[in-house]
């Protein structure tokens, strides 16, 4: 007791402050672990790989030529020969389904890439520079957002040029706004964060700050938005194709296969025909959404920090 009174706490010396940190894990490691803990995300990823694989390897997997018509096989029931049946022209549905995936995925990814590029650039410019540039870009976004998307898409594609390329261009032109808003918002909030201020006091240049300090922190939300966008563009493509304005037959897409299946006789006798193309769209979009949601949780820096 007395002894204690005399002893005083020693001042901290730098060397005895070496706390042990936990096991070192990289950002990527944490991300991977968190992503794979999310069951739905993993399920989505597996389904997505299967769907993409089946589209890419369609020529190897398809039992028949997707466009070869066998009159005797019209509306054939699912069987060993035609695993998912045949359509009203006697074409093998499974083969068409696999090839259709190529077009839907191509349009989805290409539209996502271009829309994300436009959106991210516009958003970054608006967010960092602010002022009049920001006002102009954001007014354009407001105006484009006022049109229900599908009306302009239909107008652009139907009245101008119904082709896959033009479809992608229209999607990109009409689909970049939400990404722009997202990135602008990220820029605005990151710009005020103390680590960006610190970078400025260290004399690091404006562009280096944008690309080296701000962007890496905005990349998470961008990846998530891009993943979800692929699904949205696939829905948009199939909707337009279904309405007869997107990709026209004989090129198969999941959407235009359903157009052909929209028929009372088929409804009465061949229920499998309209079922499968729609199911493919549904599962593809669902997978993208599962993966996107998993990415959102895994990339959220707040969860890492706390």
């Amino acid at each position, binding site marked *: 007791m007395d002894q204690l009174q005399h002893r*005083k706490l*020693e*001042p*901290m*010396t*730098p*060397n005895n*402050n*070496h*706390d042990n*940190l*936990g096991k*070192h*894990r*990289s*950002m990527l490691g944490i991300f991977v672990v968190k992503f794979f803990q999310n069951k739905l995300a993993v399920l989505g990823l597996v389904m997505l790989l299967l769907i993409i694989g089946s589209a890419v390897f369609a020529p190897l997997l398809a039992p028949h030529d997707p466009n070869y018509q066998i009159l005797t096989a019209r509306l054939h029931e699912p069987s060993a020969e035609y695993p998912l049946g045949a359509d009203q022209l006697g074409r093998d549905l499974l083969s068409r389904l696999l090839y259709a995936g190529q077009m839907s995925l191509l349009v989805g990814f290409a539209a996502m890439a271009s829309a994300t590029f436009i959106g991210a650039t516009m958003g970054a410019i608006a967010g960092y520079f602010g002022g009049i540039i920001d*006002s102009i870009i954001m007014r354009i976004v407001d105006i484009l957002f006022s049109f229900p998307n599908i009306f302009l898409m239909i107008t652009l594609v139907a009245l101008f040029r119904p082709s896959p390329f033009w479809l992608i261009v229209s999607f990109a032109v009409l689909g970049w706004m939400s990404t722009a808003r997202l990135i602008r918002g990220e820029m605005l909030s990151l710009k005020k*964060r*103390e*680590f960006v*201020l*610190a*970078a*400025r*006091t*260290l*004399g*690091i*240049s*404006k562009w*280096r700050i944008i690309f*080296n*300090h701000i962007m*890496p*922190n905005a990349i998470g939300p961008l990846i998530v938005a891009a993943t979800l966008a692929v699904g949205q563009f696939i829905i948009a493509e199939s909707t337009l194709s279904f309405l007869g304005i997107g990709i026209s037959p004989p090129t198969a897409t999941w959407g235009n296969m359903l157009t052909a299946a929209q028929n009372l006789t088929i409804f009465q006798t061949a229920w499998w025909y309209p079922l499968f193309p729609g199911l493919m769209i549904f599962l593809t979009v669902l997978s993208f959404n599962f993966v996107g949601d998993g990415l959102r949780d895994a990339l959220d*820096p707040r969860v*890492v*920090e706390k």
Partner: protein
Amino acid sequence: MGTSIVAQNKPNEKIQHSEKILEVKNLKKYFPIKAGVLQRTKGHIKAVDGIDFFIRKGETFGLVGESGCGKSTAGRTITRLYEPTEGEIFFEGENITSKKERHLFNLRRNMQMVFQDPYSSLNPRKTVGTTLIEPLKVHRMYKTHKECREYAQSILERVGLNPSFINRYPHEFSGGQRQRIGIARSLVLNPKLIVGDEPVSALDVSIQSQVLNLLNDLQDEFDLTYLFIAHDLSVVKHFSDRIGVMYLGNMSEVANKKDLYDEPLHPYTQALLSAVPRSHPREVKKERILLKGDIPSPANPPTGCVFHTRCPFVMDHCKEVTPEMKEVRPNHFVACHLH
């Protein structure tokens, strides 16, 4: 570091005659309030509304005040993170008020900042090493990456962190350790002046004292001058040589810490000091001066003396005439009509 506590009485007299490293004259920073269809400027938040003070080489100047008094804005304007609205800032005799960003490059090296929030002040996507090495490269302090890295590690060690942590990410550290990293970052360029913007207020008491001691040690070792911004009067008193008290964008009083705490002249300083909780249950406090009401909005500050709406000694005069900062005693400046 030895185990004994050396009373490091600072050579106060030497400091008192050393040159001014920083001088601020009539500094103002207004933020526009935008409203309406065309987002036209409808008014201004007068965050800093004309403050004057100077800091001598080697001293610690404490800037204290309650939330919204403009102390942080002042710090950020002095480091030119914000564009000053009016007034002049001199660093080592050179007017840096309106220097363009690219001419500030050398200034950046000499004037660094430590921030409040240990969570938001480090880039979550960068390792400690990248954070420390990048400025060294930008300023071409060393030729090779290896030298940069070694220097960064030595700085880490100096702030009390294990140099092997250089590849770790911020989220792997505790709040106190992060604050040490922030201090390391401010040190790498070997600056002359460090602006600490509430560097210890987010920390637990036991960690706070570690960081304060660290800053104290570094000051001697690296020959630093501090502008220390904080709201905790005990911390400021402990840490500073001279102190400025801010209220609603204005400087009320500037004095040596002893003069300021023993004989506060401005009624606001008196109220502020009397409000500090006692540090021992039997400590006898002077009559507590309770201020009525709240701090007015900086968008619409009172006329005359900004403190007149809450001042216990308010006179008619105070409502109309803004008091000038006067040196009423040697090195004791106060802006109040009572003096």
